[in-house]
């Protein structure tokens, strides 16, 4: 491999990593990460600094209604800003992953403040041990309310949380609709979580919402002997989670879901088996699992690149980040959440406890038009600093570019993305009609932006 080819490979690989571990990056950021090296970048992504964002005060000032967010609609400017600007992309990406897997929906909870608290929870613990994540979400007052655990009492357990904990949050069901657990295990889990609930808060209708708190009522907890997944004891919720976390079925379920979210829409059985082993060897350490994913030959291979349909959040925030136009919170940044909603993903309000169905289900004829219009509009923002830098990068690639070089330069400027042969051929035909690209000509900027817009309008751009 020549030095130039190796450099292109490095750039392409870093770009791939950042599309999956984040929401994509600008070409300049790719250069910076490439200079650090691939594995160093993986480690940086895996170890975001746990601290309040330096601009949280600004966000609260400009979006005061988000401080005590009454509803999802009042809360989403907060997360939209983080998704559009965070320099800790994996922290936001893992929050999005858990937000869909351990889903709490605003449609029932209708408590924007608690929804933001849940996202913050995922930022804080989302890269840690799965057992701890499950404990934290089981103590999350929003989750307790969402799945009716405040109605689960010592003498009348409500099975909703116990059932979803096993079926949707940890062990899953098999192809035949069964699972590695029984109906009795569901009932036992429900007994173990009696007394786990959210503390009552005043109604939000006259003073706005109050922060929710977890409450354990020992007098309403069934402390009797229980048999769960073959083990017997006076189990509480923590014990149930501990038992769940060491099951092979749990390891496989989480490996499977991480694979679908970070690697490819089509599962790869050998790779999922390998990740299942990693889960068990590391006691379910999510950071270790992601490290194993990102550093694997499988993840780095061409086989999985551009094989995942972008979720609306990935499409919206990934494209918006290219513009680098968000230096201070404003209505433009807050409107990005609405764009994702128009494409079918209402952030902070997943449609059900199952979260969002990913993959090809994201795209239909209506959402595709929304996606194309949005992406085309974003890369057409010639006043945005990020777009200006992209234009300059194309312009300085060479004095005169033939159509193929011009298309490649535009693809590179957009973040080292790649297209299939068919799309590339159409774009080169279009470029050929105008002739070689000359950056000195006055129409060069317009021509470059037009090519950016054509690229993000291809079917290929819907993949990451």
């Amino acid at each position: 491999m020549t030095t130039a080819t190796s450099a292109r490979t490095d750039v392409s690989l870093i770009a791939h990593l950042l599309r999956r571990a984040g929401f994509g990056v600008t070409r300049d950021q790719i250069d910076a990460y490439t200079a650090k090296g691939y594995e160093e970048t993986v480690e940086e992504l895996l170890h975001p600094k746990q601290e309040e964002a330096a601009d949280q005060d600004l966000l609260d000032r400009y979006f005061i209604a988000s401080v005590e967010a009454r509803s999802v609609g009042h809360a989403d400017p907060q997360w939209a800003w983080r998704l559009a600007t965070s320099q800790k992309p994996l922290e936001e990406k893992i929050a999005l992953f858990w937000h869909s897997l351990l889903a709490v929906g605003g449609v029932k909870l209708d408590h924007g403040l608690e929804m933001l608290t849940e996202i913050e929870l995922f930022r804080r613990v989302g890269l840690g041990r799965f057992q701890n994540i499950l404990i934290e979400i089981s103590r999350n007052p929003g989750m307790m309310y969402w799945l009716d655990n405040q109605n689960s009492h010592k003498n009348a357990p409500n099975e909703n949380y116990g059932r979803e904990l096993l079926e949707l949050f940890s062990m899953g069901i098999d192809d035949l609709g069964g699972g590695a657990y029984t109906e009795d295990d569901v009932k036992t889990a429900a007994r173990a979580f009696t007394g786990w609930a959210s503390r009552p808060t005043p109604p939000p209708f006259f003073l706005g919402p109050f922060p929710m708190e977890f409450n354990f009522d020992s007098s309403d907890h069934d402390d009797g002997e229980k048999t769960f997944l073959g083990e017997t004891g006076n189990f509480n919720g923590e014990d149930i989670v501990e038992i769940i976390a060491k099951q092979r079925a749990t390891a496989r379920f989480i490996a499977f879901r991480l694979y679908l979210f970070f690697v490819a829409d089509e599962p790869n059985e050998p790779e999922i088996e390998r990740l299942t082993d990693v889960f068990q060897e590391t006691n379910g350490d999510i950071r270790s699992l992601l490290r194993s994913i990102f550093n694997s030959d499988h993840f780095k291979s061409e086989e999985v690149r551009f094989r995942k349909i972008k979720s609306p959040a990935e499409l919206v925030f990934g494209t918006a980040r290219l513009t680098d136009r968000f230096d201070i919170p404003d209505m433009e940044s807050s409107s990005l959440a609405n764009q994702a909603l128009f494409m079918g993903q209402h952030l902070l309000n997943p449609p059900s406890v199952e979260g969002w169905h990913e993959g090809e289900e994201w795209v239909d004829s209506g959402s595709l038009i929304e996606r194309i219009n949005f992406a085309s509009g974003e890369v057409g923002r010639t006043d945005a600093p990020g777009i200006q830098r992209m234009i300059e990068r194309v312009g300085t690639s060479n004095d005169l570019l033939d159509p193929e070089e011009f298309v490649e330069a535009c693809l590179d400027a957009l973040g080292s993305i790649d297209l299939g042969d068919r799309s590339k051929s159409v774009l080169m035909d279009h470029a050929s009609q105008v002739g070689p690209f000359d950056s000195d000509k006055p129409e060069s900027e317009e021509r470059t932006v037009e090519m950016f817009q054509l690229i993000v309008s291809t079917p290929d751009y819907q993949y990451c």
Partner: protein
Amino acid sequence: MSLNNFSYSHTIGIASFLGRGFMNPVDVRLDSKGLVYVLSRSNAGNQDVRVSVQTQDSEFLHEFGRWGTDPGQTTQPSAMAIDSDDRIYVTDEFMHNVTVFNREGQFIDRWGESGTENGRFNRPSGIAIDSEGNLHIVDHLNTRIQKLAPDGTFISSFGTFGTEPGQLNFPWGIAIDEEDSIWVADWRNDRVQKFSNNGDFINSLGSSGKKDGQFNRPSGVHVTSDGSIFVADWRNDRVQAFTSDDTHSETLIGDATLSKWCQEFLDVNPEQASWRENAALFEMEKRFWRPSAIESSDDGLILIADSCRHRIQIYQQERAMAMN
């Protein structure tokens, strides 16, 4: 926390998207008749903004300046001031302008647009009126205080970005005292600064922290006719009072009781009243959550915009006992 120089009086407000009540009130002003004007900001995308007018006894009168970009509408209102003729000036951070209403809420004029030139703004926030009727506006992303005539004609400006004495960092609220000195809530420098009417730095009050006399992002400042200084210590969820020689005298953390409107709401919604009783967070209900701005009356009422609790908490300052 006991009150030495104040007594709690009462509270006006209820969370409401329109009509009677407020949604994240960020400013409160009294007109010449003692009517209470409250500026609701909410989030621009939620379109709950407006100016509400009510008596001090919670009689709702009318509202104006609702969401929009047409003349007479506001989008991201930040602050307001009322002149001696009871004209209301509202700053708007989205449209970068100032809209003027009469006391009935009818649109009179608006001026200003985005820019750095004199008379233009980049997110105008706090606004105050001096003894000559001129407006002093915190042009906060241009890091300056602009002085304009009531019709928007530029007169002068001062201010540079930084942390040194006299410099500003995302300033927000502003007040003019009896001597026409200018007080600015230097928000991101965690201090309040005093300037002469022509912008010469005089002194600074406060530093970063949680102790008495320290601030965490002060949003509003107000100076009463007897020289007492009030600071909305926004991120510390409290209001601090200082004597005219800058000595800390009181810290208010909120003492709200149910407003008349809240009581009426609970009376006709017994299930909500029961829900509230069951929660029993009565102490938490009293406290400020992001108090943003302060106003006073000549007879010693101190009105505080309790932004995230959608209400105005009102205290009575015991002047005979208190300050210089």
